């Protein structure tokens, strides 16, 4: 209803107000929210980062240089390489991306194998290179990767390699998909439960309300970590990874819906008393129309804000569960699963790059929190 | 007004209080002048958004940020025996020691909604005693006695037991009385009352207004009453300031304001109120249009957009100066300048 349709013809505007003013007057709640949100710099940054992370999650196969499960015994715990662009050769300076190779050096005292960068070996790297074939979203057959070595056999570990010589960068990119989507799917599930039960609670009130509120209080009073541990341990170990994945989301949203249900109930209760809802009833609107047309638009924005704020806790929960070995299990790759590798001190000491997925978790959670804060502040542009 | 200097308690000169918001600067008070005489009642009357509350808050330096006083003087004449000391409240630091010594002790304030100034988690007795102990060198027991005495004087029945009540246990009228008790317990020389009866019913309003007059007679403080209700003004005021969009458009004694209003706004306002006893079904004279919103103040005289007597090309250009009319009366309207008197 916001696009400027031509005004009723035949009526001259007496005193044309300034254009910006008119824009404000005909601005819908979403426009007003955007104008308010725009002023919140941190939230804008958070929103951009969130968007980038989800874009990464969407195009993992293309972005990851190799298959996350491709291993190489030759390069276990290989340290991160730097990507170089300026190539000084005998024939002069050439500008193209390349990485140096590795050279194994044995520490005589500790008798430990360590990798050093071997400047004599140069492996050219190319953007949009043809590499391991994959199916984008399981549909489109493709070979092109954003970046990769020209020679598929050449070692390229920009973020290092793990215990089995797998490329951490590829694994992290693949982990993004699982970790970020588990938040979304979990929230979607909580959303359905939360809106349904919160809505019933707030709209009907009375004893149904009391019952639902007691259930929520009960669920919230259970300490979450032991509950997850219990439920996570209860998942049959022979389940296929995909089913485990859904099992985990169900467990997470079992707790997650309570917060959302409270928000919805509170909004319903306060809106029920608003004069404009009474006005709609006196207009002769049906109950369904009152809810859908008059009440829901008033708290949709609040719900979006609280959803955004509940995704990070889902991500953290998944990470925690997987880290403890009770959530997702290899071969599924998530940030939590990757961090599991960094569980013992020795491997962290020798290969600190294994902790990089932790940084990804922190960045994603912070970005979503900032975005959610901004949305919450902008959620009620009429306050 | 003979012996003027002795008489004056507070002078406000060219007060300007602006709010600096992201959307622009709101000139809530834009040049207001008046004085309050000792033991007299000054009413500031105006519609919502005219700046009457901000004026009152400016006096005590309790304007909420991003608002602040940008110009003007607020001269408080403090009496020490026979000498009078003049303090400029506008120049004081809002969080400083000086203004805090004035606040609550020499000038106190009551609000429309008592719950804004009464804490819900302390008994009214504790809050009144706190006010006493803050400003006067007395013991706790003496403070308690004073508080009980004060509650009795504002007409709260059984004050010995009521003193232990929390504000939510009192009715609206009783809360307002408790707030008045708290405001007057240090015997201020000026009580600022910001719409003290707006939230109350007429019969309770009558009780509270009567109480204020009684206490004024008894304790001799001046009252600055902020209201939009011309009936309350007529009942209470000695002097009146009429405000419109941050300007004090007219001031004078109450009889001349009601019976010989000068400014077109005052005249229109008086015509637009239905009066009890007026022959029913006469059409009311209304003021056309709406109060402009504070971001879009009209240029020139702020009232010209709604004024029937506005001179085109003049009133929308020239900000009217203050024009003294004698007997302490003043009007801000170009029709009273020599140049444009002919247009009247």
């Amino acid at each position, binding site marked *: 209803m916001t696009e400027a*349709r031509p005004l009723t013809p035949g009526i001259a505007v007496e005193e044309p107000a300034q254009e910006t003013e008119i824009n404000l007057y005909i601005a819908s709640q979403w426009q007003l929210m955007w104008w308010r949100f725009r002023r919140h710099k941190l939230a804008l940054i958070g929103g951009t980062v969130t968007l980038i992370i989800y874009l990464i999650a969407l195009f993992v196969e293309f972005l990851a240089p190799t298959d996350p499960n491709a291993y190489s015994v030759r390069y276990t715990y290989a340290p991160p390489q730097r990507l170089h662009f300026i190539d000084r050769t005998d024939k002069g300076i050439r500008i193209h991306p390349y990485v140096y190779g590795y050279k194994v050096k044995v520490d005589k005292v500790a008798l430990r194998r360590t990798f050093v960068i071997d400047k004599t070996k140069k492996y050219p790297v190319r953007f949009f290179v043809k590499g391991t074939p994959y199916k984008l979203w399981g549909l489109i057959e493709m070979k092109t990767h954003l970046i990769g070595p020209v020679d598929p056999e050449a070692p390229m570990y920009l973020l290092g390699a793990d215990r089995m010589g797998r490329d951490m960068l590829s694994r992290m990119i693949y982990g993004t998909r699982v970790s970020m989507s588990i938040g979304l799917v979990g929230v979607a599930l909580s959303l359905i439960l939360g809106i349904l039960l919160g809505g019933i609670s707030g709209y009907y009130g009375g004893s149904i309300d009391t019952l639902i509120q007691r259930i929520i209080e009960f669920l919230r009073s259970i300490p979450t970590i032991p509950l997850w541990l219990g439920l996570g341990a209860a998942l049959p170990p022979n389940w296929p990874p995909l089913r485990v994945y859904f099992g985990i989301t169900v467990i997470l949203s079992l707790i997650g819906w309570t917060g959302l249900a409270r928000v919805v109930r509170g909004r319903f209760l306060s809106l029920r008393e608003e004069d404009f809802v009474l006005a709609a009833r006196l207009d002769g609107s049906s109950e369904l129309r009152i809810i859908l047309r008059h009440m829901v638009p008033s708290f949709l924005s609040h719900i979006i804000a609280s959803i955004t704020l509940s995704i990070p806790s889902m991500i953290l929960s998944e990470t925690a569960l997987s880290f403890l070995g009770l959530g997702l299990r290899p071969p599924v790759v998530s940030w939590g699963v990757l961090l599991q590798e960094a569980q013992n001190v020795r491997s962290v000491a020798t290969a600190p790059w294994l902790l990089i997925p932790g940084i990804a978790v922190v960045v994603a959670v912070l970005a979503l929190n900032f975005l959610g804060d901004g949305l919450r502040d902008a959620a009620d542009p009429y306050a | 007004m003979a012996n003027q200097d002795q008489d004056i308690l507070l002078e406000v000169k060219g007060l300007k209080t602006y709010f600096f918001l992201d959307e622009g600067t709101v000139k809530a008070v834009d040049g207001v002048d008046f004085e309050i005489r000792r033991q007299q009642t000054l009413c500031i009357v105006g519609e919502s958004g005219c700046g009457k509350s901000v004026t009152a808050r400016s006096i005590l330096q309790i304007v909420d940020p991003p608002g602040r006083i940008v110009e003007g003087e607020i001269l408080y004449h403090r009496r020490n025996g026979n000498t009078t000391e003049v303090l400029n409240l506008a120049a004081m630091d809002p969080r400083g020691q000086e203004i805090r010594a004035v606040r609550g002790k020499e000038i106190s304030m009551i609000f429309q909604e008592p719950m804004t100034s009464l804490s819900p988690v302390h008994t009214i007795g504790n809050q009144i005693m706190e006010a006493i102990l803050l400003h006067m060198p007395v013991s706790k027991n003496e403070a308690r006695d004073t508080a009980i005495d004060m509650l009795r004087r504002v007409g709260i029945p059984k004050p010995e037991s009521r003193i232990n009540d929390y504000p939510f246990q009192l009715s609206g009228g009783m809360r307002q009385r408790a707030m008045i008790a708290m405001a007057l317990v240090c015997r201020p020389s000026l009580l600022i009352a910001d719409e003290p009866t707006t939230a109350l019913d007429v019969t309770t309003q009558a009780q509270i207004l009567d109480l204020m007059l009684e206490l004024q007679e008894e304790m001799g403080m001046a009252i600055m009453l902020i209201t939009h209700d011309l009936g309350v003004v007529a*009942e209470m*005021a000695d002097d009146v300031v009429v405000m419109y969009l941050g300007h004090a458009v007219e001031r004078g004694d109450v009889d001349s304001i009601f019976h010989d209003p000068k400014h077109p706004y005052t005249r229109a306002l008086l015509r637009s109120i239905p009066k*009890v006893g007026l022959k029913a079904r006469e059409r009311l004279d209304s003021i056309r249009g709406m109060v402009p919103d504070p971001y879009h103040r009209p240029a020139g005289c702020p009232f010209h957009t709604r004024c029937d007597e506005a001179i085109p090309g003049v009133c929308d250009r020239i900000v009217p100066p203050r024009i003294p009319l004698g007997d302490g009366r003043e009007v801000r309207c170009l029709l009273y300048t020599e140049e444009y008197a002919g247009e009247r």
Partner: protein
Amino acid sequence: MADDLITRDEEVLLEVRDLKMHFPIRRGLLRRVIGYVKAVDGVNLFIRKGETLGLVGESGCGKTTTGRCILRAYDPTGGQILYRQKDGQIVDLSQLDGKALKPYRREIRMIFQDPYSSLNPRMTLLDIVGEPLRVNKIASGKELEDRVAALLRRVGLRPEYMRRYPHAFSGGERQRIGIARALALDPRLVVADEAVSALDVSVRAQILNLLQDLQQEFDLTYLFIAHDLSVVEYISDRVAVMYVGKLVELADTEELYINPKHPYTEALLSAVPKPDPRLRTRKHRIVLQGEVADPAHPPSGCYFHPRCPYARERCAKEEPQLRDIGGGHYVACHYAEELSLRGVIGEGIVAQ
């Protein structure tokens, strides 16, 4: 009040008989009912076609509840709401519900007090004013726009504002939007609940004038609920005074203001501040003692007796009934004929 006035008098549009609205007070885990707030406790009144009946009283006296019962926003717990349809048939609205009420929702409309909360901030004027037309399937599309435009024009707003949202308007303009919404279905009875109380003085006069113009133009009947006696006097033909859920007095406006018969009406009139400094009423003012009774625990006998300066023994024991003391002047006081009470005449001059 006489039995079934509405059946005898063709001119009566609505008669409320012994209307009761008791709200249960619930406590505890099981939400047991421990008592009732008797918000409306036996109200009798009638409204004639084309007139304005003012309903005054202090906050909590039940005037808003009475209005909402008539609108059937509440389900009254007792009594009748007799309404004369266009064809002369009389129907008891208190007995209807759901679908059966729908035709009457079109004929009895409401104007709200708060111009901010009564308009959905997320809907444009077109949607707000057009909603009743849309819901009742009266108009849609281009025709809806034309009708909304006409309504907006009629209440003094520019039709091209219909794409704007309420936040673009000031309090007075919003109240005009609310009036346009009430008028959208060609109502016969409009319940205006404190319709001008939230407005500034200068804007209030505009809205009062508008309401009067619309009444003449569309032959409307108003139930005008307000606490401001000067506004009620200005707009009403007859005035009803409520105290703690009951009607204490009902009479023609002039009669009631000049010659009140109930001590509460007298006190109310005397408490109104008169906008004329020459008439400072402090010396003559009757200042009521004490507070309005609690509708959950009303006093015995006449609810007003604990505060009444003229109360006698009988007042504490026996509840006075609303009765006609002649000339359509109804009053609920045992001693209405004996008391000589002061009203107001002329420009607020206190009669002796």
